[in-house]
């Protein structure tokens, strides 16, 4: 290979070569880190909520004033919703996955101890919960109607009853490597009464799973058996496949038919809830992706223009080489090898820079460590783009007429 003459030619053109190498280094560092953030966002956005998302919609009901018979009204609403054609089941809840806000509670393994799991999302459900939410029960059983108690918000903490259903993630957090079914936990520091884990669901995300709040997990949740009653209540309705939009309208009409002294808010399909909650994440991923593509393009333009400039300045030398017997392929190879050397130097600096930048970013912002695979992918992509960018100038160089050499002597 003709590496030595290329290197000595580069040493006469340090400025330009350094510029290209620096651009490539920065590009690799930024694209690598962007890909890492994008992958993190996509992973988070793709997590299942545990619900039958395609067939669920939710609405928030607020009574005007403080009616005394909230519990009876809620049960009447639920009966009306469950009787609607196309409805599989309906549930009154305090909150639901990805709602953005909700209630959380500490769980202890012994009375009076420090919590073994804190900020566990609390979902108030009744005997219909399993069917209405579409969660997958992997052990134990759901609540029976006779196990479901009455509930008022003001009673919070008095007692949480004797049975609880937890997510697999919470079960593992409380009893690592053991079977959590049938084990006792304590939900109130002052009480000696245990609450028994009578069921485990595969997954149910927390209300704030999309919010990325430090200290609040995405998958530790528990279900408690109450007939939820409050001035504001979230109704979650599961429909038969394909009837979501139809029921979304008939359900509102049915509730207003029972009483118009109410406000129905946040009426949306679960797909809309998901899309709304992850909008900032999606925006960030799209923006970073767009910037990465733009950046690679800008770098490619820089390579094209600088290489073109070199071709113009070296016409004479190229002509001489051609006159002395170099083939077009030799000229092409010369420019590609030169570019490879510059890009290679840039890539080495860029990879080191990317890792350094990532380590710094990880300490300052809430992003994960970058994988080795991603940095390799971005390095290979940038290298290919760089080689592609130099192709056009190299072709122009290869088409220099050998007679040029004779003309300028």
């Amino acid at each position, binding site marked *: 290979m003709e590496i030595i003459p290329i290197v000595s030619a580069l040493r006469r053109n340090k400025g330009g070569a350094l510029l290209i190498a620096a651009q490539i280094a920065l590009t690799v560092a930024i694209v690598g880190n962007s890909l890492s953030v994008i992958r993190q966002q996509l992973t988070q956005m793709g997590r299942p909520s545990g619900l039958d998302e395609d067939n669920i919609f939710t609405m928030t009901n607020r009574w005007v004033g403080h009616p005394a018979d909230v519990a009876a009204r809620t049960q009447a609403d639920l009966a009306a919703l469950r009787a609607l054609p196309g409805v599989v089941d309906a549930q009154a809840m305090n909150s639901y996955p990805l709602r953005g806000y909700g209630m959380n509670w500490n769980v202890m393994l012994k009375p009076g101890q420090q919590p073994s799991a804190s900020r566990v999302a609390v979902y108030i459900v009744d005997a219909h919960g399993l069917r209405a939410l579409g969660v997958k029960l992997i052990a134990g059983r759901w609540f029976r109607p006779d196990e479901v108690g009455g509930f008022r918000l003001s009673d919070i903490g008095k007692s949480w009853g004797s049975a609880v259903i937890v997510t697999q993630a919470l079960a593992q957090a409380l009893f690592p490597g053991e079977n959590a079914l049938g084990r006792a936990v304590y939900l*109130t520091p002052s009480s000696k009464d245990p609450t028994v884990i009578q069921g485990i669901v595969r997954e149910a995300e927390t209300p704030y799973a999309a919010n990325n709040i430090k200290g609040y997990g995405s998958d530790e949740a528990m279900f408690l058996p109450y007939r939820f009653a409050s001035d504001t209540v979230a109704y979650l309705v599961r429909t038969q496949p394909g009837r979501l939009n139809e029921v979304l309208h008939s359900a509102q009409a049915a509730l207003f038919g029972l009483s118009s002294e109410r406000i129905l808010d946040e009426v949306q399909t679960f797909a809309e809830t998901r899309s*709304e909650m992850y*909008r900032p994440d*999606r*925006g960030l991923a799209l923006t970073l992706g767009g910037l990465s593509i733009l950046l690679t393009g800008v770098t490619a333009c*820089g390579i094209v223009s600088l290489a073109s400039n070199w071709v113009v300045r070296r016409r004479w030398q190229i002509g001489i080489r051609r006159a002395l017997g170099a083939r077009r392929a030799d000229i092409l190879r010369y420019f590609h090898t030169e570019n490879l050397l510059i890009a290679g130097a840039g890539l080495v600096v860029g990879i080191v820079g990317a890792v350094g930048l990532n380590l710094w970013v990880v300490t300052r912002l809430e992003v994960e460590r970058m994988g080795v695979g991603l940095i390799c992918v971005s390095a290979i992509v940038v290298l290919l783009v760089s080689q592609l960018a130099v192709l056009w100038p190299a072709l122009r160089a290869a088409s220099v007429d050998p007679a040029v050499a004779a003309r300028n002597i």
Partner: protein
Amino acid sequence: MLGYYINLALRSLRQNGVLTVLMVTAIGVGIGASMTTLSIFRAMSSNPIRDKSSRLFTPQIDNYGPGGEGAVTEPTSDHLPMELTYTDSVALMRAHRARHQVAMYATVVAVTPPDPRQLPIQVPTRATYADFFTMFDVPFEYGAPWSALDDDGAAPVIVLARDLNDRLFGGANSVGRTLRLNDQEYRITGVIEDWNPMPRFYDLYSGKFGGPEEIFMPFTRAVAQRLPSAGMTQCLKNPGTGPDVLLHSECVWTQLWVELPNDAAVRAYRSYLAGYVAEQRRVGRFGWPARSALRDVSQWLGYNRIVSSEVSVLLLVSLAFLLVCLLNAVGLMLAKFMARAPHVCTRRALGADRRAVFGQCLVEAGVVGILGGLVGVGLMMLGLHVAAGLFSGAAVALTRPDGGDVAIALALSVGATLLAAMYPTWRASHVQPAWHLKVQ
């Protein structure tokens, strides 16, 4: 001479159109991308009440103690609770140690519109004191705040936001009329003009109802009605039972702001606050050397790190992006100036010194910088428009570029381009005159 140089620069830029377009585009794209995120960053970290920022303070009290470190979830440096207990808010209100002080919390009420054809709506509401409007310089369209007597008597009075007044009363002067809130009659004492500080510095955590608050009512009234908080409520321990539980517990859910006119007043309030906390410890409420803090608006915003980590990532990426674009421009200018070496040689041979050549090239770079800046401002507008679509609902969507953003874009463009032009210009002014003349 400058006019002549500008003339020369324009001629030279026209002469090699492709290179000029490439240069201007490279700089414009870099400026556009970085300024889009920079103006979002500026909007998010801007001070919403600049004039009084250093006179408005919010106190914090260490009522969690050493056990609070895990309980305070937001990324603060000193693990103090972000809000106050009802007990502390009321005590500090009663002490009346500042010129103005207002306790407050966020709630939501159901409003029955006066027009029976309209359905009830729920409205984000702030429960606070009459001094709120004076302290925060809230402008009134009609009427005035309620009186201090209304605060004392927990009177059913409200102030509406203009937008809600438009929807309910068609924009008419509604002062003196009544409105049904949660099935009770409230008298309207005033209507404020459009006022929605971004970020909402006085309560950064009022939950999902991030939109403007459209009803203001006395804190005392809201508490008397037991209106629940729609903001953040944090409890270290199980608060117990009953409807009044939040009033007596160590849960934090209220905010308090005080106005202190000068440094002496700030010092006095700090020592009063320290004394109050010590007193609470003495009477047995705190079993630890409890701390307290007093922060003004800009300190409070910084302490709460309200600039989201997404925007910080984007700012970092787009500044690096600008750097790449500038490196690119360096290469292009190098090519351009070197291509003009023969002209430079002629000028040198005719008696121009290196400084003159240097100056001429810099002027040309400056013209490129201005053009790039104009392209950049255009791309920034486009970028903000796109960002508003991608992030709709978030604070990003509310970012509007102001004159400051445009000025920064142009200054950044010209400054960065001149910096980038240094090396090519230096090379151009060190061309050996004789060498090129010989070729010609």
